[in-house]
């Protein structure tokens, strides 16, 4: 859930002079508590995943990943499902952000709240809703069966469930970015005779590119890692509908911890890469904002 992380940087940090007014005991004590908390809750688990995954050596690790056809299939299935959700929610996110950040219309606040809805629906409930619609006993179940389409307990169900839980990510990221940038440049492009798509590709996209990219990587991380919703619609057919997180669970249930941790280590690596990309994108956003502020002030001086 990214509802509280935006890449728009906050203003400068409070001057250290204020901090130094806190007594040294308080400063050291609080810093210690913070580092211990992050260490125990976040660092130790991450290190443990890789330790357990590689405990049997590199060869065993590799065997655990590619030697088991079911595990290999789960990796490929995840690589097929996640991009669908990312692309679908990317298109939706751009459309929703354009409508919400650029126009005033009745029900705008309600629409914004609706976009957040998947964040507050338990993933299991999300999966259940799809089963009620497309399952054998569901509303469209008989019709789908007659036409030979299977959604639940098959890949399309996994894709739909993943789309639902990752729906808000790109939109939530883009709305504040587009509001912060404002519509002056776009208005100028249109009044200078650009077509809508020209304006979008030459003005809007370059302006929102980092926010867009950030939304995509968050959406991707969640799409690959989704468990609850996918769990309900997959039917747990080993080698057919198990995604990577479901495979982690199945191997864990089979007491095959080394293999379970091997798959988990890939997912953890992905999470770490996501964090790294986030840091880089934050840096770029800050630099771009500083640059645009500088160029505005130069333009102001020249006039």
């Amino acid at each position, binding site marked *: *859930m990214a509802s509280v992380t935006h890449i728009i940087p*906050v*203003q400068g940090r*409070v001057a250290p002079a204020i*901090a130094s007014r*806190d*007594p040294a005991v308080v*400063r050291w004590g609080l*810093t210690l*508590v*913070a*580092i211990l*908390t992050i260490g125990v*809750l976040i*660092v*130790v*688990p991450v290190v*443990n*995943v890789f330790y*357990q995954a590689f405990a049997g050596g590199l060869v065993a690790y590799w065997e655990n990943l590619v030697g088991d056809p079911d595990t290999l299939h789960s990796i490929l299935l995840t690589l097929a499902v996640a991009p669908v959700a990312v692309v679908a929610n990317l298109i939706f996110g751009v*459309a929703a952000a354009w*409508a919400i950040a*650029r*126009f*005033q219309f009745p029900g705008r606040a309600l*629409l914004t709240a*609706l*976009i957040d*809805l998947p*964040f*507050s*629906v338990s993933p*299991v*409930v999300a999966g*259940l*809703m799809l*089963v*009620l619609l497309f399952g054998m*006993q*569901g509303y469209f179940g008989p019709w789908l069966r007659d036409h030979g389409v299977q959604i639940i307990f098959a890949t399309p169900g996994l894709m*739909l469930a993943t789309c*639902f839980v990752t*729906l808000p990510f790109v939109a939530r990221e883009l709305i504040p970015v587009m509001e912060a940038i404002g519509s002056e440049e776009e*208005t100028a492009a*249109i009044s200078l005779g650009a077509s809508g798509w020209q304006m979008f590709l030459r003005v809007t996209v370059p302006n929102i590119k980092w926010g867009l990219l950030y939304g995509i990587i*968050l959406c991707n991380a969640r799409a690959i*890692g*989704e*468990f*609850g919703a996918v769990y*309900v619609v997959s039917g747990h057919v080993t080698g057919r509908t198990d995604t990577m*997180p479901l495979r*982690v*669970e199945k191997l*864990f249930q089979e007491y095959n911890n080394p293999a*379970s941790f091997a798959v*988990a280590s890939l*997912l*953890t690596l992905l999470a770490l890469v996501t964090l790294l990309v986030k*840091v880089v994108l934050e840096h770029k956003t800050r630099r771009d904002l500083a640059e645009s502020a500088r160029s505005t002030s130069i333009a102001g001086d020249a006039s």
Partner: protein
Amino acid sequence: MSQSNRHVLPGFSLSLGYTLLYLGLLTIIPLAACFGKVFSLTFDQFWAAVWTPRTIAAYRFTCTVSFLSSVASMLLGFVIAWVLVRYEFPLKRVFDALIDLPFALPTAVAGLVYSGLYVENGWLGQFLVPLGIHGAYSRFAVVLVLTFLGIPFVVRTLEPVLDSLEADMEEAAHLLGASRAQTFWRVIFPTLVPAMITGFALSLARGLGEYGSVVFVSGNMPFKTEIAPVLIVARLEEFAYAEATAIAVVLLGISFAMLISINLLERWSSKYHG
């Protein structure tokens, strides 16, 4: 962003139309199906499905662990946000980046690793179990993993507020003779309360719906450590769709109440900060 935008900028009907269509297909129709299914039950059937000793125990367990972990997230998250914004220490940027890990890490992985760390021969369990602290397959285990998931919500809502605090206010309080403790409780703390409550509510909402990590660490013992989403899955595996949906509607009701209160809180706190 003015009304006149609609006459200048293109794409209003296209973008709004597509947004509504996509939202309708992906969220409104499934939600309607959920409520439609529940209305196929009589009230007595509905009540029999959602109010049994086992479901009551599950609601109570879900609410208790979510509440406890959100309190823990709020307190620890406050300390972390304070330290990250105000103090300097080695590797600070690394720690800052790591705060987001629970957002990016698949919950199944969190569950898997937490279930191994706190058992008797686990890295942390070897020290804690002899002390009688059981951080795996217990209520405490669920609180731990939900705290892991909840902390980033609190830290990331508090950070911008702490960052925007005016140094002048603290300086004025200091010059007027307030002690550091007085300055904190009377000047700084009140401005942080709305953000802390928002962070608390966000992590509570996350905890109430969480499934992936909890099934790994809780042990799923009926009447003891069973959460409500587990009951839904159990009903589904028995093909008791209507009963599963009834419990889901109760969970949805709780989620919507949370969503509305978060929105109200956000509006209230933004008013608070001008």
